[in-house]
């Protein structure tokens, strides 16, 4: 299939982009790497009248350190995060996770902000940035606001973005020297979407003990604090913590999510 007829704009500044995105006379959508929206356009699942390409906006393509945070522009590609031309404050989380997103061809174009805005529960950044405790800076014509990941992802393909708003930056807190992390996803084949994702961060100096079960039928399931670790991280304890969450839709799914989480935790413990 071919996309419906649409107009295309490629503004050079964020303000120009936001102005276009605020138009109410046409159906408008932002696009960055086009790795999710592209197929949706071609399947006519998305039928915008105006596509605003934000990838030429310089400020959205920068990575910089601000104190104990790394600020990543929304249009930074997975490939760049994989290749690591920036001060990695995450002790390897960003490049390691970026390297296992889909295939390199997808990573060359796909962006971190686009992945969050699309909010596929199986997406790597949706779960990993939740585990890292990142904040999302949202820009709109009314200004900017910062939202923690746990409040940004609201459900399957649902985010805190309001009409006319886009993801501008992701703020990732630096990990302390003794922080440890684990990441495990269950994919049927290399590069395929995850069926169960476990992401774990333990950073004693910052008082963080966080487990995330992702690729569920809802927003990431966060088990924050020492409870799970106090329970010895047994499979039974994990299953109990996941019970009632979107990870427990059926026994087979619950089992697979438990295993993903168990294997992520094992990386931290080893």
């Amino acid at each position: 299939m071919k996309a419906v007829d649409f107009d295309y704009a490629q503004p050079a500044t964020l303000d120009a982009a936001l102005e276009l995105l605020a138009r109410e006379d046409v159906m408008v959508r932002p696009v960055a790497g086009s790795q999710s929206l592209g197929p949706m356009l071609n399947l006519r699942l998305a039928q915008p009248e105006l596509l605003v390409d934000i990838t030429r906006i310089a400020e959205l393509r920068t990575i910089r350190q601000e104190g104990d945070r790394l600020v990543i522009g929304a249009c930074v590609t997975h490939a760049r995060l994989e290749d690591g031309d920036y001060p990695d404050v995450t002790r390897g989380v960003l490049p390691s996770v970026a390297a296992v997103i889909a295939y390199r061809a997808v990573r060359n174009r796909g962006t971190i902000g686009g992945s969050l805005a699309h909010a596929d529960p199986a997406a790597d950044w949706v779960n990993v940035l939740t585990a890292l405790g990142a904040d999302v800076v949202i820009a709109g014509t009314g200004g900017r606001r910062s939202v923690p990941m746990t409040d940004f992802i609201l459900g399957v393909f649902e985010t805190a973005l309001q009409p006319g708003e886009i993801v501008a930056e992701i703020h990732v807190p630096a990990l302390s020297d003794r922080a440890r992390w684990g990441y495990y996803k269950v994919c049927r084949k290399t590069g395929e979407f995850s069926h169960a994702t476990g992401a774990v961060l333990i950073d004693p100096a910052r008082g963080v003990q966080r487990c995330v079960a992702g690729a569920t039928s809802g927003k990431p399931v966060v088990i924050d604090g020492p409870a799970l670790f106090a329970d010895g991280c047994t499979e039974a304890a994990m299953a109990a913590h996941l019970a009632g969450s979107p990870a427990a839709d059926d026994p087979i799914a619950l089992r697979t999510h438990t295993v993903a989480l168990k294997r992520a935790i094992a990386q931290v413990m080893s």
Partner: protein
Amino acid sequence: MGEVSTAGSGVGARVRRKEDDRLLRGRGRFVGDIALVGMKELAFVRSPVAHATITGIEIPEEHRGTVFTWADLAAGGVKPIRAVSGLPGFKVSEQPALADGKVRFVGEPVAVCVAATRAEAEDIAASVFVDYAELPVNSDMLEAVTPGAPKVHDHWPDNVFLETNVGGTIAEIAATAPVKVSRTIRTARQCMVPLEGKGVVAHWDRHVEQLVLTTSTQMPHIVRAGLSECLDLDQGLIRVVAPDVGGGFGWKGLLQPEEIVAAWIAMRLDRPVRWTEDRREHLVAAANAREHHYEITAYADARGRLLGIEADAWVDAGAYSVYPFSACLEAAQVGSILPGPYDFAHYRCRTFSVCTNKPPIVPYRGVARTGVCFAMEQMIDAVADAVGREPWQVRLENLVPPEKMPFDNVTKKHFDSGDYPESVRRAVAAIELDGWRARQKAGEADGRLIGVGFATYCEQSAHGTAVYHGWGIPMVPGHEQAQARITPDGGLELRVGVQSHGQSMETTFAQVAHEVLGIPLEKIKLVHGDTGLTPYSTGTWGSRSMVMAGGAVATACRTLAERLRRIGAHLMQAGPEAVVLEEGSVKAGAAAVTIREIAHTWYRAPQLLPADVDRGGLEVTAGYKPGSDHGTFSYATHAVAVAVDPEIGQVEILDYVVVEDAGTMVNPMVVDGQIYGGVAQGVGTALYERMPYDAEGQPLASTFADYLIPGFTEVPHVRIIHMLTPSPYTEFGVKGIGEGGAIAPPAAICNAINDALKPLGVTVTNAPMTPEVILCAIAETRGAA
């Protein structure tokens, strides 16, 4: 064993492919690359429901004249596709190229829209409103054969295209056999997903007064025959051309409704039109294959020697019978080939070609053999388990031994040659079974379970006249013809009616001709895939092209050689008996005259020719059939080692060995390539590929995000070991090899998974063996324990 040399560039040489220079540089010319002046693009309105009566089609006023329905085609004299089998009891389906008042599967074409671009044609398609009165749906073949099931074709008494019964009663064996094992086995509905989808450009060539259909096909001559029948147009008014074709696997081995529509529109509008199938159309609307269901029982003695096999088999043939293979080829083939490469005496098999509200089933690489091998090889392992022996030992116990070759099996299949047991012994050695058994015993640090599986098959290929006459379908292969023509500068043109869409024929047929004539490969040009330029052929299917068309090329070249020898002898003033054709020259002792010089004489200096010269000249069309009409039988044993993760149900292939016998290999590198590609598809059948349907007949996968195929990282490194038993019946002893790689992987991988799961008491019997299937089987066994 054969003694063909692998040096040089003739038969047996590992020559690089001539076509790669074009294809690997992206310079091929596919349907999608063609641009004709004034060409329009087509988009189809397709049914969103599986079974319904069409109560109205509303075409917006502004699009009248650019949207066409069956009413327009029927008024123009277009007839539905009828692919009839002569087997007794076959029920005929009529498939109109656009739906005629009723739709029978999701994706069935209902109307066609014409515009300058595909996107605009799709805009028009979206504006056409079709009113459907939905009918009850047959989404599962076993339910479709129950009394009271909704009927796909109203005038039929039931939903069965054909029931066949092979063999006799085996009640006595059933009552007395020491070992009896039964299984329910199923393979999923698959799509073929060649890299290039289907595509067609049609236009009326005013100069030659012909309809020219440039189409992505494996069989241009058969498409011409079918078009002629449906359009009621003389075959002389139709030329079908296959340009570069990016893989077929069976999907391009049939006449398609879209081809008929494109041809009719081109004539109606008197301008070129094109339709290119997109991936969504491919996955949803067409190219379905493989869906089998078996209830099968094996009887054996205490050593595992097979006493008999009894089976009922169902094939979900979809809504219509495809042209030319028909809806019953697959299931009828199940009945005749289920016994596989084994020697046993008692057999009974009943098959049903079931009509359902799904796209028509199409023969896919290996056709019924992949399902048959999946069923039979599971039974061998089940018998081995029952008698407490290694599965490979039970295979050795039952395979036809070399001393019995040639051998007529229980269904009268004529196995031509080979050492089947040796393929098993070599596979056991190559996979290093003892090492895996030791590792199994020790256990894996990561908790995964190791398993090893084997599967053996033999494959009838290059089917002869009698075999296809028996099916009674619209296509019966006879003598395959090839034309060989020496050019005035001493080169060679070969013209064949088969079509190369990955088989490397531009290289391998040149090797065959070189073997006979000695003309260098770079001076040999293959012309193929064009009814206007080549002799009639049923096309490329059934692993037949090298046996049949290769044999015809050799035959034509031998006739040319004799003519060249006689002219050469005259030019050297030698007797014809005193000269030989060697290395591209006719030689008499120390004297020699090159083919180039002889060609120059024939074409440019005929005054030098002898008075009694053969007036046929340096151009020959020759027909060929192998010495046996039963086809050739290649065979192989596949061995695979896997690690199964019982926590998440994932399977990793750790090693994969193919021991195969294709007889004489014209180009071993090409044979290896065929096997690698086939195994990749077999891995897809085994672990990934499934087109799921819901109860309403809706396909639940429409992109590669839902329909998984193996990628680079999922296809194992395959180690190939060649055996080499020439066929006694063919030129050079070649056997068909194109499909074999895709036959055994699901069976071998299934047996390996079950070997791995044995400590858990778990057995899986359905393909694909996805994590969900494996986890459910483990959970069920736990629940039952």
